[in-house]
């Protein structure tokens, strides 16, 4: 066999067979040919030897320090993923949404986040909540009931869910209610309330505290950040509240404070 001209035009099929690229019919036809072709038989033997040589070669897995550097670099780069031109400092969210820029921006943010969390690493509740929030950001998934009126959103949950979630609107404080949807978290249906802060979406998940597993009770006032999303949790009036958004921590804290003190 020479290096550039295999000698028989079917040797590449011999190789393809070993690489799992042939279907049954092609493999059968090749087998028939191989019976009468010494070149192809020799090629097969040599390919098997070469494969044996490579078998068990260790994979170059990413060293931990390189992984850490990449993650740090990505975190640094996330704001750059969003072109500055689409981040005007003082434009109301309604103008942005009306002009369509807001959508593009939202899509860019969602893409950046989706990029980081193609697969959740852990399967705990916080991951579920963040994953659900990200899924909800995909077009057409955000709200089942679109209304800025809490008296429309609240009754919508009746009959769809076995509890009545509190619904509050904070339009005056800069967190207008956009709607609600039904979600499934922690093995039960939950109410998701959708709020907006400038160009950011805030998802608030509500469900009765009794449904929460014991390990969550200890986290009755927790907060954190995961995959670039800020997450906060509290319990009140027999309900669990989980809020997730890409707004800044301080704004999310404001939102939580508003919720806690509003009647």
């Amino acid at each position, binding site marked *: 066999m020479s290096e550039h001209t295999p000698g028989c035009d079917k040797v*590449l099929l011999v190789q393809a067979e070993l*690489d*799992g690229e042939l279907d049954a019919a092609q493999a059968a036809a090749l087998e028939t040919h191989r019976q009468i072709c010494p070149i192809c038989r020799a090629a097969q033997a040599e390919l098997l030897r070469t494969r044996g040589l490579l078998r068990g070669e260790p994979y170059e897995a990413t060293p931990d320090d390189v992984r850490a550097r*990449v993650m740090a*670099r*990505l975190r640094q780069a996330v704001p750059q993923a969003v072109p500055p031109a689409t981040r005007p400092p003082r434009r109301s969210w309604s103008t942005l949404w009306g002009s369509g820029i807001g959508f593009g921006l939202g899509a860019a943010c969602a893409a950046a986040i*989706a*990029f980081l969390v193609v697969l959740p690493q852990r399967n705990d509740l916080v991951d579920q909540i963040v994953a659900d929030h990200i899924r909800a950001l995909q077009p057409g998934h955000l709200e089942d009931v679109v209304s800025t009126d809490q008296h429309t959103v609240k009754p919508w949950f009746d009959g769809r869910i076995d509890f009545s979630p509190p619904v509050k609107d904070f339009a005056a404080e800069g967190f207008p209610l956009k709607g609600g949807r039904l979600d499934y978290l922690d093995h039960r249906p939950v109410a998701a309330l959708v709020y907006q802060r400038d160009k950011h979406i805030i998802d608030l998940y509500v469900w009765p505290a009794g449904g929460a597993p014991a390990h969550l009770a200890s986290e009755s006032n927790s907060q954190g950040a995961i995959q670039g999303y800020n997450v906060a949790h509290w319990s009140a009036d027999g309900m669990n509240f989980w809020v997730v958004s890409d707004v800044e921590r301080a704004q999310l804290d404001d939102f939580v404070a508003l919720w806690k003190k509003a009647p």
Partner: protein
Amino acid sequence: MLPHLDAAYNLARWLMRDPEAAADVLQEAMVRALTYFASFKGVNPRAWLLQIVRNTAYGSMALNRGVETVPIATESDEPVAAELVSGDDDPEVALLRSRESRQVRALIAALPVELRETLVLREFEEFSYKEIAEATQTPIGTVMSRLWRARQLLAQAAAAEGLP
């Protein structure tokens, strides 16, 4: 994309043949991937990511043309511990295997880059021909002949070195 980080690093490592250069390429490629992720419309994120890694690596190689990089597997950079933790009961057999492994890796590293990347994607990433074609932006027929040539060269070099 993060689940494919190892695949990305592995390709960068084999293309650049130097751990530091590979880490730089990986960082650059991941940032590029993040920037362009919104425009990704394909169905195979891994092949897409590795295509970016490859383009980044080629860009880096073009910049560093003339600068020698250290081949991926030399006698010195292979940790001795790897020899000791081998599952073989017989230390002599383990040592022999480890030496063979170093030789094989040096042979792969010595392959021309277009053959090397095709072989690495097939053997280590277990990419299909179609995926290799996508990642390397090469027709499938070329993928097949490159793979053939890579294996031929490897077999010949291995025979010359007395490898089984």
